[in-house]
């Protein structure tokens, strides 16, 4: 059985305190108290005294890897990572946004995380469904084993078998809801472009107003930009105020990339992102 | 055209384009109003600005370079913007010829405080491209009916090179007049340059205008302002008697769109002209 959240919180505090005391890191990215128990906030501990304000519970869903690129290169950081977060860190290392030696990963094996807005349990339907971080320096709880392994792509079956017209109607309805608050791109640990393509005015890829065509352009291009990079944390969908199931599309693209290129995002720091890589023997079949 | 809607531009025609500098990226555009009623309505004072509006591109807030004493037209000196972010409006404007028609919204913002300046000596300090609304002010004061309302007028204007000086003909004309003292300087002259060389702050120090009953009107790049202000403090100018004009990204120009604030003041509707005393009440940062 998994280590209790209370225990993880304790371990997290101890580790953070130790790292800050020893001066090994200048900040620890983890979770802090929000306005109530069910709404923890991403939190940065800079001094030992900050550690007291750290929490960890089932609502600590935010992907802390999002914040790594905010600090100057070379900043020594420790970061609390859940399975998907650790993949994000790995992916960021692959993309040379951060250096392996600059981050200390405090791994957290999790099961039963909950969405703080709906209270629903988060599982492989909306995330990668992994229990243990793929990369860590310290593990704050015991590794979780013995759970039934579910493919994160199972949820796609229903949509893959859908008639293409129905599928278009489905996505059109979803994208039309978009209010272009851009929470999806901001919550995404892999969306770090500045400026984002949609904010450019020359060439202008999409209008600023929330209309069908601009929404479609924004989302499709964003899915493309995250192809082979999306680590399936599901943050974009949880961030979305109008509940667009962005995770579905990301999962589909991730699945196709995995099938075509034999590599999933953020699994090993030795990998190269699939779209900045190639193999001479890539088959032309992938274009069919 | 709807006259009660501040978001709808008035149609104007470019009647003259003057290529101001040797880098050809600053031009002065002279506009006339296509609707007579608009011309009557467009009452402005030096220091105000207007939104130049090109459909399909957008709008750009630009200071009015002509003086209200010049009848029948308004002038704007526009730099082609966009070394980093493409400046769609200014690029489109620079590509236009005389006779082209665009939109204009304004006049917007406050102006140089004419009543406050009356009966005082004025020192106008300008740097580079920021000289536009200062030119408006100078021409306004030099206008025959107005000249007697103001005391001594001193103009200190600097640019990086002689080729980058704006309004060269006018500068020459001012230099010939005896009711205005004109000091032109460049950072670095060329073989034909016979005038002064040196940075604006140093020239101000040399010129050493007396602070007595005098207002300094300063406009220029931030680095010039940064080094010029201490000179004027040292000369004994009070913060109330130093005026400047701010720039900030704007959209609506009428204090509604919420982006050009510095503290609780909107640059577009509470400014762009502020005295140093007013500015010091506001946060240093944005």
């Amino acid at each position: 059985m998994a280590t209790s959240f209370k225990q993880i919180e304790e371990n997290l505090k101890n580790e953070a305190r130790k790292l800050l005391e020893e001066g090994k890191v200048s900040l620890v990215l983890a979770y802090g108290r929000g306005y109530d128990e069910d709404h923890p906030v991403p939190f940065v501990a800079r001094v030992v005294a900050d550690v007291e304000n750290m929490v960890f519970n089932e609502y600590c869903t935010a992907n802390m890897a999002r914040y790594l690129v905010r600090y100057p290169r070379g900043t020594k950081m420790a970061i609390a990572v859940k399975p998907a977060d650790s993949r994000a860190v790995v992916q960021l290392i692959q993309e040379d946004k951060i250096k392996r030696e600059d981050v200390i990963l405090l791994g957290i094996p999790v099961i039963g995380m909950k969405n703080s807005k709906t209270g629903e349990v988060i599982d492989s339907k909306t995330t990668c469904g992994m229990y243990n971080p793929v990369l860590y320096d310290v593990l704050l709880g015991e590794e979780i084993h013995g759970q039934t392994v579910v493919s994160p792509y199972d949820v796609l079956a229903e949509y893959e078998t859908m008639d293409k017209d129905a599928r278009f109607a489905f996505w059109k309805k979803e994208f039309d809801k978009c209010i272009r608050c851009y929470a999806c791109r901001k919550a995404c640990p892999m969306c770090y472009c500045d400026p984002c393509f949609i904010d450019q005015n020359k060439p202008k890829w999409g209008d600023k107003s929330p209309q069908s065509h601009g929404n479609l352009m924004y989302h499709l291009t964003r899915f493309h930009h995250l192809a082979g990079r999306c680590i399936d944390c599901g943050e974009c969908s949880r961030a979305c105020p109008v509940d667009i199931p962005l995770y579905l599309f990301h999962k589909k693209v991730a699945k196709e990339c995995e099938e075509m290129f034999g590599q999933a995002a953020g699994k090993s720091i030795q990998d190269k992102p699939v779209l900045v890589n190639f193999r001479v023997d890539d088959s032309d079949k992938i274009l069919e | 055209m709807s006259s009660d809607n501040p978001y709808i531009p008035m149609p104007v025609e470019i009647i003259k384009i003057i290529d101001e500098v040797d880098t050809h990226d600053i031009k002065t555009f002279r506009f006339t109003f296509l609707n007579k009623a608009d011309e009557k309505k467009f009452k402005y004072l030096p220091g105000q600005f207007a939104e130049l509006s090109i459909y399909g591109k957008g709008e750009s807030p630009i200071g009015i370079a002509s003086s209200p004493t010049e009848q029948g037209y308004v002038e704007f000196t526009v730099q082609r913007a966009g070394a980093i972010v493409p400046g769609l409006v200014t690029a489109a404007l620079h590509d236009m010829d005389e006779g082209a028609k665009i939109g204009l919204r304004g006049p917007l913002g406050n102006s140089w405080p004419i009543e406050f300046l009356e009966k005082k000596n004025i020192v106008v300090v300008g740097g580079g491209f920021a000289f536009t609304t200062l030119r408006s002010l100078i021409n306004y004061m030099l206008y025959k009916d107005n000249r007697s309302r103001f005391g001594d007028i001193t103009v200190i204007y600097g640019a990086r090179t002689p080729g980058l000086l704006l309004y060269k003909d006018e500068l020459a004309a001012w230099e010939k007049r005896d009711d205005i003292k004109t000091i032109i300087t460049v950072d670095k002259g060329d073989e034909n340059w016979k005038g002064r060389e040196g940075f604006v702050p140093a020239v101000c120090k040399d010129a050493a205008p007396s602070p007595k009953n005098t207002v300094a009107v300063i406009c220029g790049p931030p680095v010039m302002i940064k080094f010029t202000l201490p000179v004027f403090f040292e000369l004994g100018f009070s913060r109330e008697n130093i005026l400047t004009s701010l720039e900030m990204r704007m959209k609506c120009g009428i204090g509604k769109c919420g982006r050009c604030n510095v503290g609780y003041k909107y640059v577009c509707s509470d400014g762009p002209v502020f005295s140093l005393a007013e500015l010091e009440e506001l946060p240093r940062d944005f």
Partner: protein
Amino acid sequence: MSFEPKILGIACNWCTYTGADLAGTTRLQYPQNTRVVRVMCSSRINPSFIFRAFQLGADGVLVGGCHPGDCHYNTGNLYARRRLAVTKKILEFSGMEPGRFRVEWISASEGNKFAEVVREFTEQIRNLGPQTKFKIEK
């Protein structure tokens, strides 16, 4: 009136575009529905070009590049292959008919192949009918 599809062709400068030239100089007949845009390399193609083309009313998009291994820049088309494969999957999952987007490797000497591909693709698009899903209504 029968449906005349509008097809955007994006061709690499070194192979497919030259191939298209060859098709022209050898006076090969092929449908005129394809308007060709030349790019320096198939890897220069931003996937957004393709989305945007469909939005602006293209009924089909045909991308042509050098055969893998023949790229003027050595590896450009190898990157493009992966990238455009993803584009295709995204179009498909969003509900676009898969047949509307096609990537072909056509060398400078393959004027015949160019004509053949264009003929075939035009026919295919003609059968699919007008593209209405992405197209922005005027």
